[in-house]
């Protein structure tokens, strides 16, 4: 198992290198440079050239890439010019906030989605199945940012149950209950869409398992229906559900961008959008590489979990 994990980690290196090259090239190719973004209306060719050289952007592309890569390997992601702060510090702060939001949403949508899928499958074409299918389709069809805005309007502006935006209160204790009250709306908005997909796919995974012989055997042995579904069928279905969850984790992470903007959540999605608009090259590059690395690691973890669950998948 250790060998397998090591092998997977080694094979992730070219992926990350590739990502670093792609994001570097994209940032170099998109029109508009950081100096123009900083200077705005004052961006004369002369001012732009001077500022670009102050920012170290006048060196050849290849040289700039290797300087960046070399520094990054030593843990130095550079300094963000739009925030005047170390990139790594900013990225860690922001990624932490995103993890809280996306993590909560991921746990919620996994539990709700799998439960809905199981219930749906076990009562195929029944009332519960139809109801769940309807709600799930509705959830998939409405864009999450719209759900977010509606939630703000109803629960924050009209009912005033929750704060409109932010992660912490501006005044008062930064305790768990303060966090929960700020987290509820964005996490729910983010959960809605992802739950639908998980529910749909869990339902079909369950249906497939429920048709298999060992289920009939279990029923013939007199195992209770509850036991058949939750203990026998679900465990077998998890083998195909877990990779879905792995994919959905990426979906939740990228969906968080919209939610972070609507709810002003200080997460990494909002950071990247701002950084791209300001052409904050180092911040975009550092942020993307950091997120990509986390995503790759997460996928390795999912694969490992899967191979532990199903001995047929060879480590």
């Amino acid at each position, binding site marked *: 198992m250790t060998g397998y994990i090591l092998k997977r980690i080694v094979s992730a290196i070219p992926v990350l290198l590739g990502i670093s090259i792609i994001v570097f090239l994209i940032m170099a190719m*998109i*029109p*508009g*440079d950081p100096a*123009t*973004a*900083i*200077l*705005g*209306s*004052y961006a*004369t*060719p*002369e*001012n732009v050239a001077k*500022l670009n050289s*102050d920012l170290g952007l006048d060196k050849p592309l290849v040289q700039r890439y290797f300087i960046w890569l070399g520094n990054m390997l030593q843990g130095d992601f550079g300094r963000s*010019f739009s*925030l*005047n*702060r170390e990139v790594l510090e*900013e990225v860690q*702060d*922001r990624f932490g*906030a995103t993890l809280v939001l996306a993590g909560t949403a991921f746990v919620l949508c996994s539990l709700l989605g799998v*439960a809905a899928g199981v*219930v749906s499958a076990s*009562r195929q074409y029944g009332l519960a199945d139809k109801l769940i299918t309807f709600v799930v389709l509705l959830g998939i069809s409405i864009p999450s940012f719209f759900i977010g805005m509606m939630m*703000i*309007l109803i629960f*924050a*502006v009209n009912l*005033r*149950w929750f*704060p*409109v*935006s*932010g992660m*912490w*209160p*501006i*005044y*008062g204790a930064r305790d768990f*209950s303060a966090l*929960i*009250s700020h987290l*509820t709306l964005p996490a729910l908005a983010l959960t809605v869409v992802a739950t639908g997909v998980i529910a749909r796919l869990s339902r079909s995974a369950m249906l497939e398992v429920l048709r298999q012989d060992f289920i009939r055997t279990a029923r013939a042995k007199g195992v*209770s229906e*509850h036991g058949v*579904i939750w203990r026998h069928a679900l465990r077998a279905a998890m083998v195909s559900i877990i990779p879905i969850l792995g994919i959905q984790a990426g979906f939740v992470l990228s969906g968080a961008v919209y939610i972070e*903007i*609507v*709810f*002003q959540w*200080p997460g990494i999605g*909002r*950071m990247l959008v*701002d950084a791209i*608009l300001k*052409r904050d090259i180092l911040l975009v590059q550092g942020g993307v590489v950091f997120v990509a690395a986390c995503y790759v690691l997460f996928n390795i973890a999912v694969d490992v979990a899967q191979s532990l669950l199903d001995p047929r998948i060879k480590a």
Partner: protein
Amino acid sequence: MRLFEITRRTLLATTAAATLVLGSGAAMAQTPPGVLIVGQIAEPKALDPAAVTAVNDFRILMNVYDGLVSYKDGTLEVEPALATDWSISEDGTEYTFNLREGVSFHDGSDFNADSVVFNFERMLNEDHAYHNTGPFPLSFFFSAVQKVEKLDAHTVKFSLNAPYAPFLSNLAYPTGLIVSPDAVQQHGVDFGRNPSGTGAFKFAEWRSNEAVVVEKNADYWGGAPELDAVVFRPITDASTRTAEMLAGGIDLMVEVPPVALSEFQGNTFTVHEQAGPHVWFLILNTKEGPFADKRVRQAANYAINKEAIVNDVLEGTAEVAAGPTPPAFAWAYNDDLTPYPYSPEKAKELLAEAGAEGAELTFYVTEGGSGMLDPITMGTAIQADLNAVGFKVNIETYEWNTFLGKVNPGLEGKADMAEMAWMTNDPDTLPFLALRTEAWPDKGGFNSGYYSNPKVDDLLETARASTDQSERAKLYQEMQTIVQEDAPWVFVANWKQNAVASDRVEGFSLQPSFFLLLDDVKKN
């Protein structure tokens, strides 16, 4: 049946959890008295006045720092601040300032002539030990400064390489605010996150992406402010900012989107409006194509229904512009100018005269950008008006930075017209940078439409060299008349900055400079 028991149990648990959460949320705290919470449009870049360029950042800085001079309340004319008075040499190249005594920075160090010299050396002298705390993108505001000398502890002299009339108003601009040399030496490149000035509020805390907090400076030389603290919250999404204001999460909100203004009718809120030094215009390519003919340029000015744009598209948040200079520069504005009236007939006549009917135009439109208001909708309305009189307008839309990269190097060979907006601090700046022959893009200026009129060049050069305000005013007024007639631009709108304050806020008013000054504001 057991399945349903499980779900029922889950339902119960969910309900219980929700109740718990609601319980904690129901007691949404009111914002405390004496603490003003301001909804800003973005996270500031830094709190170092020499390093930033955005109005958003200026709104904080103006409360933490002072300049040698500042704008008089409600005007764009300078008055003493850290300098008590000054004299200007006959030839307009030497400015000597007497500095206020007994002023100290928030970090406890003294403000004196050495501080002033340090500030300008840091920005302008590449060999200065702390020049590396930049870059200083707007340092060219002071590119005329050749030398800054300390004459005695409270007197400094600036020597300019040529007379430069906007110098004083540039000193009142945020780029000229004075920072504490001690703090720069202590924090180096991190000074922007550990600011120290002499202003009415001192920096307390910067929680990344949440808030910048400043507190009352009880020892402020201009008298301690009323507020105990101000919290600047970055809320980039305009709908979310509006929702926060409606929900009572912030007390003051800047840059209210026009469509949201109707939400703030009634007694709970006060809507503030203030015209500022902003002009929104279309650059016309006077070098080639249909707009090389003055009659066609005038036709475009007649053809566009500017009233409809400011009233319907911008919901009354702007006024129709008459010429290149915004009326907010009251002393330099030519009150005799009236905007080109909306007259499609007159436009058609002029087009027929010029033989330019059916001319095809390429029109650069941006998606957003500083001061650009609602550029896509405005661009579409303009396109419709121009098509109605017989032009054939093709819009090309670009993201702001890309757009600037296309427009600033000049429109030649690419486009006939482009949207543009400027906010400046002196009536000299925009025409000097964008209307002179010497300001064509190949010479490093912003005259992207290649307008050239020797008389205008002459007026602007003379005005810049003069230090007498009434003489400058006359020159600018004449320039405005000529430029309006020549129509190198379509003059569209002057934006009115707006803000909404809750009924707990007293004594607040917006400034024509677009800065946010909070030292006289109270909150109950």
